[in-house]
């Protein structure tokens, strides 16, 4: 029962209370690039989730070796990038071999879903916050799903943010930032924080 409670709590924290976009801003530039293109947003979000979840499991084992050396912070990003590169190539090969239609749809943006601040940042955050393999995986999955949620919440208002009815100075990018900020404030309040004036 305690384990189930922990899983739900960890997932809730990663998706809502500490959403990677709304509270950490990690991957915001990627979100902006993707929302501009507006093609297969869900597919993009899910590929970020897949890579984050898979990489979080691999990171658990990597960190066991890396934490032996106190100067490992110097080369940890290099190790993460090498492994991320290998996962990226293997994923592309698997898609090309077993799901060619998906491969054709995703090949244009899968590199952005693998190499971005959301994925790399998630690995560093998980390394700081988690201890067990289960926590690593649930947190990685939760961060990915949090990214999907952020992409979805952005996509549903995209037309309004970029509408010609909006004043020119605010249209598009500035309104998008203000919108994410207001949502971020709501998520922050949801996790029980209050503002001190």
């Amino acid at each position, binding site marked *: 029962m305690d384990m189930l409670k922990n899983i739900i709590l960890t997932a809730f924290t990663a998706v809502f209370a500490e959403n990677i976009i*709304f*509270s*950490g*801003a*990690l*991957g*915001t*530039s*990627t979100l*902006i*690039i993707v929302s501009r293109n507006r093609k297969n947003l869900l597919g993009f979000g899910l590929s970020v989730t897949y890579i984050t979840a898979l990489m979080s499991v691999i990171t658990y084992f990597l960190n066991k070796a890396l934490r032996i050396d106190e100067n490992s*912070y*110097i*080369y*940890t*990003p*290099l190790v*993460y*990038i*090498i492994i*991320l*590169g290998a996962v*990226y*190539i293997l994923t*592309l090969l698997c898609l090309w071999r077993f799901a060619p239609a998906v491969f054709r749809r995703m090949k244009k943006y899968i*590199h*952005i879903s693998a*190499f*971005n*601040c959301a*994925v*790399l*940042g998630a690995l*560093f*955050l998980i390394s*700081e916050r988690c201890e067990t393999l289960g926590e690593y995986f649930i947190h990685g999955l939760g961060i990915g799903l949090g990214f999907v949620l952020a992409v979805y919440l952005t996509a549903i208002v995209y037309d309004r943010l970029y509408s010609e009815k909006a004043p*020119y*100075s*605010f249209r598009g*990018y*500035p*309104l*998008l*930032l*203000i919108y*994410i*900020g*207001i*949502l*971020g*404030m709501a998520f*922050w309040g949801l996790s029980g924080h209050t*503002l*001190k*004036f």
Partner: protein
Amino acid sequence: MSNDNNNSLKKIMLNGLLNKNPILVSGMVIAPVIVLANNFKNAVMLVIAFSLITFFTLLVSSFVPKSIVYTIRIILYTLIGALVYVPSVILLNYFMPEGVEAIGIFFPLFITNSFIVTRSESIFFLETKGKMFLDIVFCILGYDAAVLIFAALREILASGTIGGKMTGMPASFRVFEHPFGGFIMLGLFAALFRSILLLIKRVRQK
């Protein structure tokens, strides 16, 4: 010929600094700005780390042959970024250990910034080497200037200080210290910047 060169240089300079400013117009590499640029000291550290990693990574990456498939090229760019990070973190840790600690995980995250992952292939590496060099320099300068001005204003508004020193502001708005406050303030800042650019354009047309 010389006039053409001058115009081209002017265009590259204006694009990097103003018209296509990476933060205020294009929305690139904004995560560290939203989270950490709530005081001037952090902002100085951010721009040093960003400039070092982005400049040297793009410079070295521009020599990666185009004959290598795109899938591998992207991995190579980020690998070069991770290699550039090694001397950068050692150097900055030696001279500014507190600064490196203050920016935390955002330092290594510059390895996968949008300049390196997306803009490199779509803009920088399509240009001639000379143009590319200037474009990178002015984009980085545009980014740095915007971050420093934004962080200074944010610090004044959020805590009534600048670089930790009191400014005598009658009121402060702590909300701007938080990431969501950063989003809202950057949105307002980008809108103000767009208005100023529009005003300049109108004045020039008259």
